[in-house]
Protein backbone atom coordinates (compact mmCIF):
# COMPACT_ATOMS: atom_id res chain seq x y z
CA UNK A 1 0.00 0.00 0.00
CA UNK A 2 2.79 2.37 0.89
CA UNK A 3 4.59 1.41 -2.30
CA UNK A 4 1.50 2.14 -4.31
CA UNK A 5 0.93 5.47 -2.61
CA UNK A 6 4.47 6.64 -3.12
CA UNK A 7 4.72 5.63 -6.76
CA UNK A 8 1.22 6.22 -8.05
CA UNK A 9 -0.71 8.52 -5.74
CA UNK A 10 2.08 11.01 -5.02
CA UNK A 11 2.92 11.46 -8.72
CA UNK A 12 -0.78 11.86 -9.42
CA UNK A 13 -1.02 14.79 -7.04
CA UNK A 14 2.40 15.94 -8.14
CA UNK A 15 1.27 16.31 -11.73
CA UNK A 16 -1.57 18.57 -10.69
CA UNK A 17 0.68 20.73 -8.53
CA UNK A 18 3.53 20.92 -11.02
CA UNK A 19 1.21 22.15 -13.73
CA UNK A 20 1.02 25.42 -11.80
CA UNK A 21 4.77 25.99 -11.82
CA UNK A 22 7.39 26.86 -14.36
CA UNK A 23 10.38 24.63 -13.83
CA UNK A 24 13.26 23.39 -15.93
CA UNK A 25 14.23 20.60 -13.54
CA UNK A 26 17.18 22.51 -12.11
CA UNK A 27 16.97 25.35 -9.64
CA UNK A 28 13.77 26.23 -7.88
CA UNK A 29 10.33 26.00 -9.47
CA UNK A 30 8.67 29.36 -10.06
CA UNK A 31 5.04 29.88 -9.32
CA UNK A 32 3.30 30.32 -12.62
CA UNK A 33 -0.35 30.19 -11.70
CA UNK A 34 -2.49 29.52 -14.73
CA UNK A 35 0.29 30.49 -17.13
CA UNK A 36 0.98 26.93 -18.25
CA UNK A 37 -2.69 26.36 -18.83
CA UNK A 38 -2.98 29.52 -20.91
CA UNK A 39 0.04 28.37 -22.92
CA UNK A 40 -1.76 25.06 -23.47
CA UNK A 41 -4.88 26.78 -24.76
CA UNK A 42 -2.79 28.75 -27.29
CA UNK A 43 -0.32 26.06 -28.29
CA UNK A 44 -0.89 25.01 -31.92
CA UNK A 45 1.31 21.97 -31.39
CA UNK A 46 -0.86 20.79 -28.53
CA UNK A 47 -3.96 21.27 -30.65
CA UNK A 48 -2.34 19.28 -33.42
CA UNK A 49 -1.46 16.56 -30.90
CA UNK A 50 -5.04 16.50 -29.63
CA UNK A 51 -6.38 16.09 -33.16
CA UNK A 52 -3.96 13.30 -33.98
CA UNK A 53 -4.75 11.56 -30.69
CA UNK A 54 -8.48 11.83 -31.31
CA UNK A 55 -8.01 10.25 -34.73
CA UNK A 56 -5.97 7.42 -33.24
CA UNK A 57 -8.62 6.78 -30.58
CA UNK A 58 -11.62 6.78 -32.93
CA UNK A 59 -10.00 4.82 -35.76
CA UNK A 60 -8.48 2.29 -33.36
CA UNK A 61 -11.87 1.57 -31.89
CA UNK A 62 -13.57 1.37 -35.27
CA UNK A 63 -10.87 -0.94 -36.59
CA UNK A 64 -10.23 -3.16 -33.59
CA UNK A 65 -13.71 -3.77 -32.20
CA UNK A 66 -15.40 -5.53 -35.14
CA UNK A 67 -12.32 -7.54 -36.06
CA UNK A 68 -11.69 -8.63 -32.47
CA UNK A 69 -15.32 -9.56 -31.98
CA UNK A 70 -15.44 -11.58 -35.20
CA UNK A 71 -12.19 -13.36 -34.36
CA UNK A 72 -13.28 -13.92 -30.77
CA UNK A 73 -16.52 -15.57 -31.87
CA UNK A 74 -14.58 -17.56 -34.43
CA UNK A 75 -12.03 -18.86 -31.92
CA UNK A 76 -14.74 -19.68 -29.39
CA UNK A 77 -16.07 -22.28 -31.83
CA UNK A 78 -15.25 -25.91 -31.31
CA UNK A 79 -13.77 -27.31 -34.49
CA UNK A 80 -10.24 -28.52 -34.06
CA UNK A 81 -8.70 -26.14 -36.62
CA UNK A 82 -10.14 -23.15 -34.81
CA UNK A 83 -8.18 -23.85 -31.66
CA UNK A 84 -5.01 -24.18 -33.73
CA UNK A 85 -5.77 -20.81 -35.32
CA UNK A 86 -6.53 -19.38 -31.89
CA UNK A 87 -3.13 -20.45 -30.58
CA UNK A 88 -1.39 -18.81 -33.53
CA UNK A 89 -3.45 -15.62 -33.30
CA UNK A 90 -1.99 -14.99 -29.84
CA UNK A 91 1.60 -14.80 -31.07
CA UNK A 92 1.78 -10.97 -31.37
CA UNK A 93 0.98 -10.77 -27.66
CA UNK A 94 4.32 -12.32 -26.86
CA UNK A 95 6.28 -9.66 -28.72
CA UNK A 96 7.19 -6.51 -26.87
CA UNK A 97 6.13 -3.25 -28.45
CA UNK A 98 9.77 -2.51 -29.13
CA UNK A 99 10.10 -5.83 -30.91
CA UNK A 100 6.96 -5.20 -32.96
CA UNK A 101 8.18 -1.77 -33.93
CA UNK A 102 11.59 -3.02 -35.06
CA UNK A 103 10.05 -5.93 -36.96
CA UNK A 104 7.70 -3.65 -38.87
CA UNK A 105 10.43 -1.14 -39.54
CA UNK A 106 12.30 -3.91 -41.35
CA UNK A 107 9.16 -4.87 -43.26
CA UNK A 108 8.17 -1.34 -44.19
CA UNK A 109 11.58 -0.03 -45.24
CA UNK A 110 10.96 1.54 -48.66
CA UNK A 111 14.29 0.38 -50.12
CA UNK A 112 15.14 -3.01 -48.64
CA UNK A 113 11.97 -3.87 -46.73
CA UNK A 114 9.88 -6.99 -46.95
CA UNK A 115 6.89 -5.28 -48.54
CA UNK A 116 9.06 -3.73 -51.22
CA UNK A 117 10.56 -7.14 -51.97
CA UNK A 118 7.06 -8.58 -52.16
CA UNK A 119 5.91 -5.85 -54.50
CA UNK A 120 8.85 -6.62 -56.77
CA UNK A 121 8.30 -10.36 -56.99
CA UNK A 122 4.49 -10.21 -57.18
CA UNK A 123 4.36 -7.03 -59.26
CA UNK A 124 2.00 -5.36 -56.82
CA UNK A 125 2.89 -1.70 -57.09
CA UNK A 126 0.74 -0.53 -54.19
CA UNK A 127 2.87 -2.45 -51.69
CA UNK A 128 5.72 -0.12 -52.45
CA UNK A 129 5.07 3.02 -50.45
CA UNK A 130 7.09 5.25 -48.25
CA UNK A 131 5.06 3.80 -45.37
CA UNK A 132 6.73 5.74 -42.57
CA UNK A 133 7.74 8.85 -44.47
CA UNK A 134 4.69 9.86 -46.45
CA UNK A 135 2.70 12.37 -44.35
CA UNK A 136 -0.60 11.32 -45.92
CA UNK A 137 -0.41 7.65 -44.88
CA UNK A 138 1.97 7.31 -41.92
CA UNK A 139 -0.69 7.94 -39.28
CA UNK A 140 -2.86 5.20 -40.76
CA UNK A 141 0.09 2.83 -40.90
CA UNK A 142 0.68 3.49 -37.20
CA UNK A 143 -3.00 2.90 -36.39
CA UNK A 144 -2.85 -0.33 -38.36
CA UNK A 145 0.20 -1.50 -36.43
CA UNK A 146 -1.46 -0.67 -33.11
CA UNK A 147 -4.39 -2.81 -34.26
CA UNK A 148 -2.01 -5.62 -35.24
CA UNK A 149 -0.55 -5.50 -31.76
CA UNK A 150 -3.78 -5.35 -29.76
CA UNK A 151 -6.41 -7.26 -31.73
CA UNK A 152 -5.06 -10.59 -30.39
CA UNK A 153 -5.69 -9.45 -26.85
CA UNK A 154 -9.22 -8.24 -27.54
CA UNK A 155 -9.89 -11.43 -29.47
CA UNK A 156 -9.12 -13.31 -26.26
CA UNK A 157 -11.56 -11.10 -24.37
CA UNK A 158 -14.36 -11.77 -26.85
CA UNK A 159 -13.52 -15.45 -26.90
CA UNK A 160 -13.81 -15.60 -23.11
CA UNK A 161 -17.02 -13.56 -23.25
CA UNK A 162 -18.58 -15.81 -25.88
CA UNK A 163 -17.71 -18.94 -23.91
CA UNK A 164 -19.51 -17.57 -20.88
CA UNK A 165 -22.81 -17.31 -22.77
CA UNK A 166 -24.90 -20.31 -21.71
CA UNK A 167 -25.68 -22.73 -24.55
CA UNK A 168 -29.29 -22.90 -23.36
CA UNK A 169 -29.87 -19.45 -24.78
CA UNK A 170 -28.89 -20.63 -28.25
CA UNK A 171 -30.94 -23.80 -27.82
CA UNK A 172 -33.98 -21.74 -26.90
CA UNK A 173 -33.40 -19.37 -29.81
CA UNK A 174 -33.09 -22.31 -32.17
CA UNK A 175 -36.32 -23.85 -30.94
CA UNK A 176 -38.00 -20.53 -31.56
CA UNK A 177 -36.75 -20.74 -35.14
CA UNK A 178 -34.17 -17.96 -35.00
CA UNK A 179 -31.80 -17.57 -37.94
CA UNK A 180 -28.03 -17.32 -37.29
CA UNK A 181 -28.29 -13.58 -37.94
CA UNK A 182 -31.07 -13.20 -35.39
CA UNK A 183 -29.10 -15.24 -32.88
CA UNK A 184 -26.18 -12.88 -33.32
CA UNK A 185 -28.24 -9.70 -32.84
CA UNK A 186 -30.61 -11.02 -30.17
CA UNK A 187 -28.44 -13.39 -28.15
CA UNK A 188 -24.73 -12.96 -28.77
CA UNK A 189 -24.52 -9.18 -28.94
CA UNK A 190 -26.63 -8.40 -25.84
CA UNK A 191 -24.87 -11.13 -23.87
CA UNK A 192 -21.50 -9.69 -24.80
CA UNK A 193 -22.28 -6.19 -23.58
CA UNK A 194 -19.90 -6.28 -20.62
CA UNK A 195 -17.17 -7.64 -22.83
CA UNK A 196 -17.84 -4.86 -25.31
CA UNK A 197 -17.64 -2.23 -22.57
CA UNK A 198 -14.46 -3.68 -21.11
CA UNK A 199 -12.75 -4.08 -24.45
CA UNK A 200 -13.86 -0.65 -25.69
CA UNK A 201 -12.67 1.04 -22.52
CA UNK A 202 -9.28 -0.62 -22.84
CA UNK A 203 -9.01 0.27 -26.53
CA UNK A 204 -10.03 3.89 -26.00
CA UNK A 205 -7.91 4.60 -22.94
CA UNK A 206 -5.02 2.58 -24.38
CA UNK A 207 -4.94 4.44 -27.67
CA UNK A 208 -5.46 7.75 -25.92
CA UNK A 209 -2.16 7.28 -24.12
CA UNK A 210 -0.41 5.34 -26.85
CA UNK A 211 3.29 6.01 -26.93
CA UNK A 212 5.69 3.16 -27.72
CA UNK A 213 5.27 2.45 -31.44
CA UNK A 214 5.01 6.14 -32.28
CA UNK A 215 8.14 6.97 -30.29
CA UNK A 216 10.23 4.19 -31.80
CA UNK A 217 9.02 4.22 -35.39
CA UNK A 218 8.16 7.79 -36.32
CA UNK A 219 9.02 9.97 -33.32
CA UNK A 220 6.01 12.06 -34.27
CA UNK A 221 6.99 12.53 -37.87
CA UNK A 222 6.89 13.08 -40.74
CA UNK A 223 6.37 16.67 -39.67
CA UNK A 224 3.97 16.51 -36.74
CA UNK A 225 1.54 14.10 -38.40
CA UNK A 226 1.91 11.33 -35.82
CA UNK A 227 2.81 13.40 -32.79
CA UNK A 228 0.26 12.06 -30.33
CA UNK A 229 -0.41 13.72 -26.99
CA UNK A 230 1.72 11.39 -24.87
CA UNK A 231 4.67 11.86 -27.23
CA UNK A 232 4.16 15.62 -27.12
CA UNK A 233 4.25 15.41 -23.34
CA UNK A 234 7.36 13.23 -23.36
CA UNK A 235 9.24 15.64 -25.58
CA UNK A 236 8.16 18.74 -23.71
CA UNK A 237 9.25 17.13 -20.46
CA UNK A 238 12.39 15.21 -21.28
CA UNK A 239 13.79 17.04 -24.28
CA UNK A 240 12.76 20.64 -23.61
CA UNK A 241 12.85 20.15 -19.82
CA UNK A 242 9.64 22.10 -19.29
CA UNK A 243 8.23 19.99 -16.50
CA UNK A 244 5.51 22.45 -15.57
CA UNK A 245 4.00 22.63 -19.02
CA UNK A 246 4.45 18.88 -19.53
CA UNK A 247 2.41 18.34 -16.38
CA UNK A 248 -0.45 20.27 -17.92
CA UNK A 249 -0.42 17.81 -20.80
CA UNK A 250 -0.19 14.93 -18.34
CA UNK A 251 -3.16 16.20 -16.35
CA UNK A 252 -5.16 16.53 -19.57
CA UNK A 253 -4.26 12.94 -20.48
CA UNK A 254 -5.13 11.65 -17.04
CA UNK A 255 -8.41 13.51 -16.70
CA UNK A 256 -9.63 12.61 -20.18
CA UNK A 257 -8.57 8.99 -19.66
CA UNK A 258 -10.23 8.59 -16.28
CA UNK A 259 -13.26 10.56 -17.49
CA UNK A 260 -13.80 8.32 -20.49
CA UNK A 261 -13.27 5.18 -18.45
CA UNK A 262 -15.69 6.23 -15.71
CA UNK A 263 -18.16 7.55 -18.27
CA UNK A 264 -18.23 4.28 -20.17
CA UNK A 265 -18.54 2.25 -17.00
CA UNK A 266 -21.39 4.40 -15.64
CA UNK A 267 -23.17 4.61 -18.95
CA UNK A 268 -23.22 0.87 -19.33
CA UNK A 269 -24.26 0.04 -15.78
CA UNK A 270 -21.06 -1.90 -15.33
CA UNK A 271 -20.87 -0.75 -11.70
CA UNK A 272 -24.06 -2.61 -10.87
CA UNK A 273 -22.36 -5.85 -11.84
CA UNK A 274 -19.62 -5.44 -9.28
CA UNK A 275 -22.18 -4.82 -6.56
CA UNK A 276 -23.96 -8.01 -7.58
CA UNK A 277 -20.77 -9.90 -6.93
CA UNK A 278 -20.50 -8.22 -3.59
CA UNK A 279 -23.97 -9.31 -2.63
CA UNK A 280 -23.26 -12.88 -3.65
CA UNK A 281 -20.15 -13.15 -1.52
Amino acid at each position, binding site marked *: *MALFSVFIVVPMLGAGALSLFRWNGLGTPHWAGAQNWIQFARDPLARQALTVTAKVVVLSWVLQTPISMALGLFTAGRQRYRSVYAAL*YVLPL*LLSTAGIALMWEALLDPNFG*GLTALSRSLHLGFLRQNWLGDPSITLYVVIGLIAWQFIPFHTLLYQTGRRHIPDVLYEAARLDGASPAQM*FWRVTLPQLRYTIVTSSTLIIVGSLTYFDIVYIMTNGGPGYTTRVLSLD*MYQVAFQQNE*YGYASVLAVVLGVVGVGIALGLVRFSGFASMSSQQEGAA
Partner: protein
Amino acid sequence: MSQTVARSVRTPSPTRSAPAPAPRRRRVSAGRVVTFVLATVWLVIVIAPIYYMVLASFRSQGTYLTSNPWLPQGGLTVSEYGTVFGAGLGRYLVNSVILTAVCIVLTLSICLGAAYRIVRRSTRASALSFSILLLGLAIPIQAIIVPLYLLVYKAHLYDTLFALMLAMSAAAIPVSVLVMVNFVRDIPRELIGAMLVDGGSEWTVFRRLIVPLSKPVLATLAIYNGLNVWNNFILPLVLTQSNSVAVLPLGLTKLEGQYAINVPAVMAAVLLSVLPLVVVFIVMRRQVMRSLGSVVMR
Protein backbone atom coordinates in the same frame (compact mmCIF):
# COMPACT_ATOMS: atom_id res chain seq x y z
CA MET B 1 -16.07 -4.01 -42.69
CA SER B 2 -19.16 -5.70 -44.12
CA GLN B 3 -17.12 -8.86 -44.51
CA THR B 4 -16.31 -9.11 -40.85
CA VAL B 5 -19.92 -8.59 -39.91
CA ALA B 6 -20.88 -11.40 -42.23
CA ARG B 7 -18.38 -13.62 -40.49
CA SER B 8 -19.57 -12.87 -37.00
CA VAL B 9 -23.12 -13.60 -38.07
CA ARG B 10 -22.03 -17.00 -39.22
CA THR B 11 -19.96 -18.02 -36.27
CA PRO B 12 -22.69 -18.96 -33.81
CA SER B 13 -23.68 -21.83 -36.12
CA PRO B 14 -21.13 -24.41 -34.87
CA THR B 15 -22.44 -23.96 -31.35
CA ARG B 16 -25.87 -25.01 -32.44
CA SER B 17 -24.56 -28.36 -33.50
CA ALA B 18 -22.06 -28.63 -30.68
CA PRO B 19 -24.08 -30.88 -28.37
CA ALA B 20 -24.67 -33.37 -31.21
CA PRO B 21 -22.03 -36.12 -31.10
CA ALA B 22 -21.02 -36.18 -34.78
CA PRO B 23 -20.97 -32.70 -36.23
CA ARG B 24 -18.02 -33.38 -38.54
CA ARG B 25 -19.83 -34.88 -41.48
CA ARG B 26 -22.03 -31.95 -42.26
CA ARG B 27 -22.16 -30.68 -45.76
CA VAL B 28 -19.91 -27.69 -46.20
CA SER B 29 -22.00 -24.53 -46.29
CA ALA B 30 -20.99 -21.32 -48.03
CA GLY B 31 -20.87 -19.56 -44.69
CA ARG B 32 -18.27 -21.96 -43.40
CA VAL B 33 -16.09 -21.45 -46.43
CA VAL B 34 -16.25 -17.69 -46.05
CA THR B 35 -15.44 -18.01 -42.36
CA PHE B 36 -12.49 -20.23 -43.11
CA VAL B 37 -11.13 -17.92 -45.80
CA LEU B 38 -11.42 -14.78 -43.69
CA ALA B 39 -9.88 -16.49 -40.68
CA THR B 40 -7.02 -17.64 -42.85
CA VAL B 41 -6.50 -14.13 -44.22
CA TRP B 42 -6.10 -12.88 -40.67
CA LEU B 43 -3.78 -15.77 -39.89
CA VAL B 44 -1.55 -14.69 -42.77
CA ILE B 45 -1.58 -11.09 -41.52
CA VAL B 46 -0.45 -12.32 -38.11
CA ILE B 47 2.07 -14.93 -39.21
CA ALA B 48 3.69 -13.39 -42.28
CA PRO B 49 5.59 -10.61 -40.47
CA ILE B 50 6.79 -13.07 -37.85
CA TYR B 51 7.88 -15.54 -40.52
CA TYR B 52 9.73 -12.73 -42.25
CA MET B 53 11.51 -11.80 -39.05
CA VAL B 54 12.55 -15.39 -38.31
CA LEU B 55 13.89 -15.88 -41.81
CA ALA B 56 15.70 -12.54 -41.84
CA SER B 57 17.41 -13.31 -38.56
CA PHE B 58 19.11 -16.33 -40.14
CA ARG B 59 20.73 -14.36 -42.93
CA SER B 60 23.96 -12.49 -43.09
CA GLN B 61 23.76 -8.80 -43.69
CA GLY B 62 24.87 -9.30 -47.29
CA THR B 63 22.43 -12.01 -48.35
CA TYR B 64 19.54 -10.15 -46.72
CA LEU B 65 20.02 -7.34 -49.20
CA THR B 66 20.75 -9.42 -52.27
CA SER B 67 18.29 -12.34 -52.22
CA ASN B 68 14.53 -12.39 -51.85
CA PRO B 69 13.98 -12.07 -48.09
CA TRP B 70 10.73 -14.07 -48.18
CA LEU B 71 12.31 -17.29 -49.48
CA PRO B 72 14.80 -19.49 -47.61
CA GLN B 73 17.37 -19.39 -50.39
CA GLY B 74 20.86 -18.02 -50.72
CA GLY B 75 22.41 -19.38 -47.54
CA LEU B 76 21.26 -19.22 -43.93
CA THR B 77 23.49 -18.60 -40.95
CA VAL B 78 23.32 -18.02 -37.22
CA SER B 79 26.20 -15.56 -37.22
CA GLU B 80 24.07 -12.50 -36.40
CA TYR B 81 22.87 -14.16 -33.21
CA GLY B 82 26.49 -14.10 -32.15
CA THR B 83 26.78 -10.47 -33.17
CA VAL B 84 23.99 -9.31 -30.90
CA PHE B 85 25.25 -11.30 -27.95
CA GLY B 86 28.57 -9.60 -28.44
CA ALA B 87 26.74 -6.27 -28.41
CA GLY B 88 25.34 -6.72 -24.91
CA LEU B 89 22.05 -8.51 -25.46
CA GLY B 90 22.98 -11.02 -22.75
CA ARG B 91 23.16 -8.20 -20.21
CA TYR B 92 19.70 -6.89 -21.20
CA LEU B 93 18.32 -10.41 -20.98
CA VAL B 94 19.64 -10.90 -17.46
CA ASN B 95 18.28 -7.49 -16.40
CA SER B 96 14.85 -8.34 -17.76
CA VAL B 97 14.76 -11.71 -16.02
CA ILE B 98 15.76 -10.18 -12.67
CA LEU B 99 13.29 -7.32 -13.01
CA THR B 100 10.39 -9.56 -14.01
CA ALA B 101 11.05 -12.11 -11.27
CA VAL B 102 11.32 -9.50 -8.53
CA CYS B 103 8.21 -7.66 -9.73
CA ILE B 104 6.13 -10.83 -9.80
CA VAL B 105 7.17 -11.85 -6.28
CA LEU B 106 6.74 -8.34 -4.90
CA THR B 107 3.35 -7.74 -6.52
CA LEU B 108 1.91 -11.11 -5.59
CA SER B 109 2.97 -10.99 -1.95
CA ILE B 110 1.69 -7.44 -1.54
CA CYS B 111 -1.63 -8.04 -3.25
CA LEU B 112 -2.33 -11.31 -1.45
CA GLY B 113 -1.67 -9.73 1.94
CA ALA B 114 -3.61 -6.60 1.07
CA ALA B 115 -6.57 -8.55 -0.27
CA TYR B 116 -6.77 -10.70 2.84
CA ARG B 117 -6.68 -7.66 5.04
CA ILE B 118 -9.26 -5.75 3.01
CA VAL B 119 -11.65 -8.69 3.11
CA ARG B 120 -11.13 -9.75 6.74
CA ARG B 121 -10.89 -6.36 8.41
CA SER B 122 -13.45 -4.09 6.90
CA THR B 123 -12.34 -0.97 8.74
CA ARG B 124 -12.81 2.45 7.27
CA ALA B 125 -9.07 2.72 6.55
CA SER B 126 -8.97 -0.46 4.50
CA ALA B 127 -12.14 0.52 2.62
CA LEU B 128 -10.59 3.90 1.84
CA SER B 129 -7.32 2.41 0.65
CA PHE B 130 -9.29 0.02 -1.54
CA SER B 131 -11.12 2.87 -3.27
CA ILE B 132 -7.85 4.74 -3.80
CA LEU B 133 -6.47 1.58 -5.39
CA LEU B 134 -9.47 1.40 -7.70
CA LEU B 135 -8.79 4.96 -8.78
CA GLY B 136 -5.27 3.81 -9.64
CA LEU B 137 -6.81 1.37 -12.10
CA ALA B 138 -7.98 4.21 -14.26
CA ILE B 139 -4.85 6.38 -14.19
CA PRO B 140 -2.68 5.80 -17.25
CA ILE B 141 1.02 5.52 -16.46
CA GLN B 142 1.79 8.20 -19.08
CA ALA B 143 -0.15 10.72 -17.02
CA ILE B 144 2.14 10.37 -14.02
CA ILE B 145 5.45 9.73 -15.71
CA VAL B 146 6.84 13.26 -15.24
CA PRO B 147 6.41 13.48 -11.45
CA LEU B 148 7.40 9.84 -11.15
CA TYR B 149 10.66 10.65 -12.88
CA LEU B 150 11.29 13.63 -10.59
CA LEU B 151 10.47 11.50 -7.56
CA VAL B 152 12.87 8.76 -8.58
CA TYR B 153 15.49 11.35 -9.42
CA LYS B 154 15.19 13.08 -6.04
CA ALA B 155 15.35 9.72 -4.26
CA HIS B 156 18.69 9.07 -6.02
CA LEU B 157 17.23 5.99 -7.64
CA TYR B 158 17.50 7.27 -11.20
CA ASP B 159 19.16 4.79 -13.56
CA THR B 160 18.80 1.78 -11.24
CA LEU B 161 16.95 -1.50 -11.70
CA PHE B 162 15.62 -0.98 -8.19
CA ALA B 163 13.59 2.06 -9.30
CA LEU B 164 12.06 0.00 -12.09
CA MET B 165 11.19 -2.80 -9.67
CA LEU B 166 9.35 -0.43 -7.36
CA ALA B 167 7.60 1.55 -10.09
CA MET B 168 6.48 -1.46 -12.10
CA SER B 169 5.24 -3.35 -9.05
CA ALA B 170 3.33 -0.28 -7.96
CA ALA B 171 1.77 -0.02 -11.39
CA ALA B 172 0.73 -3.68 -11.28
CA ILE B 173 -0.84 -3.52 -7.83
CA PRO B 174 -4.31 -2.05 -8.56
CA VAL B 175 -5.41 -4.78 -10.99
CA SER B 176 -3.81 -7.51 -8.91
CA VAL B 177 -5.42 -6.43 -5.67
CA LEU B 178 -8.81 -6.11 -7.34
CA VAL B 179 -8.62 -9.62 -8.77
CA MET B 180 -7.31 -10.98 -5.48
CA VAL B 181 -10.00 -9.28 -3.38
CA ASN B 182 -12.72 -10.73 -5.59
CA PHE B 183 -11.20 -14.16 -5.11
CA VAL B 184 -10.55 -14.05 -1.37
CA ARG B 185 -14.05 -12.70 -0.82
CA ASP B 186 -15.46 -15.88 -2.31
CA ILE B 187 -13.63 -18.14 0.12
CA PRO B 188 -16.37 -19.35 2.52
CA ARG B 189 -16.23 -17.67 5.92
CA GLU B 190 -17.14 -20.99 7.56
CA LEU B 191 -13.78 -22.41 6.50
CA ILE B 192 -11.90 -19.51 8.06
CA GLY B 193 -14.12 -19.65 11.13
CA ALA B 194 -13.54 -23.38 11.57
CA MET B 195 -9.79 -22.92 11.47
CA LEU B 196 -9.96 -20.13 14.02
CA VAL B 197 -12.11 -22.27 16.33
CA ASP B 198 -9.55 -25.06 16.04
CA GLY B 199 -7.06 -22.67 17.56
CA GLY B 200 -5.36 -21.38 14.44
CA SER B 201 -4.19 -17.79 14.37
CA GLU B 202 -4.99 -15.36 11.55
CA TRP B 203 -1.50 -16.05 10.27
CA THR B 204 -2.12 -19.82 10.16
CA VAL B 205 -5.36 -19.22 8.30
CA PHE B 206 -3.52 -17.06 5.82
CA ARG B 207 -0.67 -19.49 5.32
CA ARG B 208 -2.56 -22.79 5.43
CA LEU B 209 -5.83 -21.81 3.79
CA ILE B 210 -5.69 -18.61 1.77
CA VAL B 211 -2.31 -19.12 0.13
CA PRO B 212 -2.95 -22.71 -1.10
CA LEU B 213 -6.45 -21.87 -2.30
CA SER B 214 -5.19 -18.84 -4.18
CA LYS B 215 -2.60 -20.69 -6.23
CA PRO B 216 -4.48 -20.66 -9.55
CA VAL B 217 -5.26 -16.95 -9.24
CA LEU B 218 -1.68 -16.23 -8.28
CA ALA B 219 -0.48 -18.10 -11.36
CA THR B 220 -2.84 -16.08 -13.52
CA LEU B 221 -1.63 -12.82 -12.04
CA ALA B 222 2.00 -13.88 -12.32
CA ILE B 223 1.58 -14.49 -16.05
CA TYR B 224 -0.36 -11.31 -16.65
CA ASN B 225 1.95 -9.06 -14.68
CA GLY B 226 5.07 -10.84 -15.86
CA LEU B 227 4.15 -10.20 -19.48
CA ASN B 228 3.45 -6.54 -18.77
CA VAL B 229 6.73 -6.01 -16.94
CA TRP B 230 8.76 -7.91 -19.53
CA ASN B 231 7.40 -5.78 -22.36
CA ASN B 232 7.07 -2.38 -20.69
CA PHE B 233 8.90 0.29 -22.58
CA ILE B 234 8.11 3.75 -21.26
CA LEU B 235 9.25 3.24 -17.65
CA PRO B 236 12.74 1.99 -18.53
CA LEU B 237 12.97 4.73 -21.17
CA VAL B 238 12.27 7.46 -18.66
CA LEU B 239 13.83 6.01 -15.51
CA THR B 240 17.10 4.55 -16.83
CA GLN B 241 19.78 5.50 -19.32
CA SER B 242 22.90 3.30 -18.97
CA ASN B 243 23.41 0.14 -20.95
CA SER B 244 24.23 -1.74 -17.77
CA VAL B 245 20.68 -1.43 -16.40
CA ALA B 246 18.80 -1.47 -19.73
CA VAL B 247 16.09 -4.10 -19.99
CA LEU B 248 15.22 -5.86 -23.23
CA PRO B 249 12.68 -3.52 -24.85
CA LEU B 250 14.97 -0.56 -24.32
CA GLY B 251 18.04 -2.61 -25.17
CA LEU B 252 16.48 -3.56 -28.50
CA THR B 253 16.17 0.06 -29.51
CA LYS B 254 19.77 0.65 -28.42
CA LEU B 255 20.88 -2.25 -30.59
CA GLU B 256 18.91 -0.82 -33.47
CA GLY B 257 20.79 2.43 -33.05
CA GLN B 258 24.06 0.50 -33.24
CA TYR B 259 23.09 -1.79 -36.11
CA ALA B 260 20.58 0.28 -38.04
CA ILE B 261 21.52 -1.21 -41.38
CA ASN B 262 22.15 -4.74 -40.12
CA VAL B 263 18.55 -5.91 -40.21
CA PRO B 264 19.35 -9.60 -39.56
CA ALA B 265 21.12 -8.67 -36.32
CA VAL B 266 18.17 -6.58 -35.13
CA MET B 267 15.72 -9.36 -36.02
CA ALA B 268 17.87 -11.90 -34.19
CA ALA B 269 17.84 -9.68 -31.12
CA VAL B 270 14.06 -9.31 -31.21
CA LEU B 271 13.64 -13.08 -31.52
CA LEU B 272 16.00 -13.77 -28.64
CA SER B 273 14.04 -11.30 -26.54
CA VAL B 274 10.79 -13.23 -27.03
CA LEU B 275 12.35 -16.66 -26.66
CA PRO B 276 11.75 -16.90 -22.88
CA LEU B 277 8.10 -15.95 -23.39
CA VAL B 278 7.70 -18.48 -26.19
CA VAL B 279 9.04 -21.19 -23.88
CA VAL B 280 6.60 -20.18 -21.14
CA PHE B 281 3.82 -20.06 -23.70
CA ILE B 282 4.55 -23.55 -25.05
CA VAL B 283 4.78 -25.04 -21.58
CA MET B 284 1.57 -23.47 -20.29
CA ARG B 285 -0.42 -22.29 -23.29
CA ARG B 286 -3.88 -22.88 -21.84
CA GLN B 287 -3.04 -21.16 -18.59
CA VAL B 288 -1.59 -18.16 -20.43
CA MET B 289 -4.56 -17.72 -22.73
CA ARG B 290 -7.05 -18.12 -19.93
CA SER B 291 -5.24 -15.70 -17.66
CA LEU B 292 -4.96 -12.97 -20.26
CA GLY B 293 -8.66 -13.24 -20.99
CA SER B 294 -9.80 -13.49 -17.42
CA VAL B 295 -7.81 -10.83 -15.57
CA VAL B 296 -9.60 -7.90 -17.13
CA MET B 297 -12.94 -9.67 -17.27
CA ARG B 298 -13.26 -9.81 -13.53
